[in-house]
């Protein structure tokens, strides 16, 4: 396989995301490891959105819904586990859990189901209406979470101890980073295969020309709905990890600001570029850390950067460095 500039760049980024926390670990700088973990998790959320947005052309401003559902899946299960109050006793006893694999499974299933319902309703529209409906669904869940006093309402839920993963000490920052990093890599491999699969070909064709896809006997709606569900599930998984990173979940995870941030990762890195969300999330964390130290209003600079990228580098950061995407053959 020939290494294009883009794939070299991808390898460099994914290597840097590994080397930086490893170096920080050897220098005993846990804060840097936590930043890298945050970048990896947010990148994962972006990888999820990028399947809908980049591949499918579905401009969802409601992905915070899935991010937050993943977060609350973690929060609710862990809260019950730490209070020793069963979640429900009928038809069988369910006690909550502090085991990450189970939490992830619940997060993925619930965010996928939510994506199925939200997608089935909003994919009947397109363009601006689709953006507004996904936004509305996200905000509905946000206000629901605020009023859901059983699970903290506006204050959110705090979890005292990070959840467990068999064989690992998740409280050790580098070990928790390893979990997030491996999941991100798996998601990237999955997204890469998806893009080249029969499904990916048909989905991206539906973005480019809906008439063509219908004329060859494929249904754009089903393709898009499937993509939306996969996309929501991955973002939901990222939400569960994010909540575990902070040991805290609150309605903020569901707010439209969060949807916007996930979209910013994708746009900063390059819409439809496989590693775009990695570049975008890493840059975002970097800016937040560096500029945030200078000014509380660091997002002004982020806004300027975003403007410049949208105006002058349509392929985002990756497009600016690696050039136009090659049609893969």
């Amino acid at each position, binding site marked *: 396989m020939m290494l294009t500039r883009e794939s070299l760049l991808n390898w460099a980024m994914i290597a840097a995301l590994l080397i930086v926390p490893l170096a920080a670990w050897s220098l005993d700088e846990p804060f840097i490891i936590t930043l890298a973990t945050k970048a990896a998790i947010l990148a994962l959320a972006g990888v999820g959105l990028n399947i809908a947005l980049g591949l499918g052309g579905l401009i969802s401003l409601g992905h915070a819904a899935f991010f937050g559902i993943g977060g609350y899946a973690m929060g609710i299960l862990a809260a019950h586990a730490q209070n020793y109050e069963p979640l429900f006793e009928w038809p069988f006893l369910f006690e909550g859990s502090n085991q990450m694999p189970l939490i992830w499974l619940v997060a993925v299933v619930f965010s996928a189901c939510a994506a199925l319902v939200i997608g089935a309703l909003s994919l009947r529209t397109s363009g601006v209406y689709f953006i507004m409906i996904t936004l509305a669904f996200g905000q509905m869940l946000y206000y629901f979470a605020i009023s859901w006093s059983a699970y903290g309402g506006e204050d959110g839920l705090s979890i005292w101890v990070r959840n467990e993963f068999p064989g690992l000490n998740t409280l050790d920052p580098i070990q928790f980073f390893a979990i997030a990093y491996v999941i991100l890599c798996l998601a990237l491999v999955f997204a890469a295969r998806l893009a080249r699969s*029969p499904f990916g070909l*048909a989905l991206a064709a539906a973005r480019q020309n809906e008439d063509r896809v219908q004329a060859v006997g494929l249904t754009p709606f089903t393709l898009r709905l499937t993509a939306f569900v996969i996309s929501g599930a991955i973002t939901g998984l990222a939400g569960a990890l994010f909540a575990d990173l902070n040991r805290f979940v609150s309605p903020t995870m569901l707010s439209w600001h969060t949807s916007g941030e996930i979209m910013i990762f994708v746009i900063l890195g390059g819409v439809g570029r496989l590693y775009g969300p990695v570049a975008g999330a890493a840059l975002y964390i970097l800016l937040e850390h560096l500029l945030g130290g200078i000014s509380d209003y660091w997002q002004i600079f982020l806004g300027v950067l975003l403007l410049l990228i949208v105006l002058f580098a349509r392929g985002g950061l990756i497009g600016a460095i690696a050039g136009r995407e090659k049609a893969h053959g």
Partner: protein
Amino acid sequence: MADVVLKTQALNKSFGALQASRDVSLDLRPGEIHALIGPNGAGKSTLIKQIAGNLVPDSGTVELLGQDVTALDTVARARMGLGRTFQISALAMEYTVLQNAVLGALGGRGRPFHFFRNVMKDAELLETARTALERVGLTQDANRRTADLSHGQRRQLEVAVALTLKPKLFLMDEPMAGLGTAGSKALTGFLDGLRQEAPILLVEHDMDAVFALADRISVLVYGQIIATGTADDIRANAEVRRAYLGEEDAA
């Protein structure tokens, strides 16, 4: 066994006060090229859309292979074997030529819900796609971006994608539009042979092509079919001459 492949019966379609289709009944028989001609604004596109399933007629029926498909959508009709080419090329512009053809082959085969295997390494799809590209003469351009193709090459690719579906009939909306004389001639020769494979309902402005190819011609004027017949019948038809061919005859 259906003896007509496609049949429309008394199709009516109005947009407000404008009646774009007026009791349109026509059919397409096995092995023939049936050309649909008419001046601009005669309602050809509206008719095509009703046949393909983009528009629901106000009244009347569309039958495909002996089955009433009036209530079915474009996807269902495509799956039944309707191979369509668009008046304005509808292709995935970011894709290579080969990818567009593979997309067609994938649609023809169905079952697109595979998430892991590489679609561009699927031998069956590639075979279908490459054969179709070869037949329209695009083999050399297989790896070019579709957006970089000339207008004429895009028209050829439209036909190739329709071929990958292995359709039971073709619905071609001005396939010659914008082709040069040479391109037009080449495509005329190709369509001539294609009718043996599947009949063609051909909407076309290029009169040379129409009179050279068509077994039957229907003339649509103000939404209404004013005549159907062989090339000679149509040439001789006074009403047609007045409505449509007049300018050319005078020349």
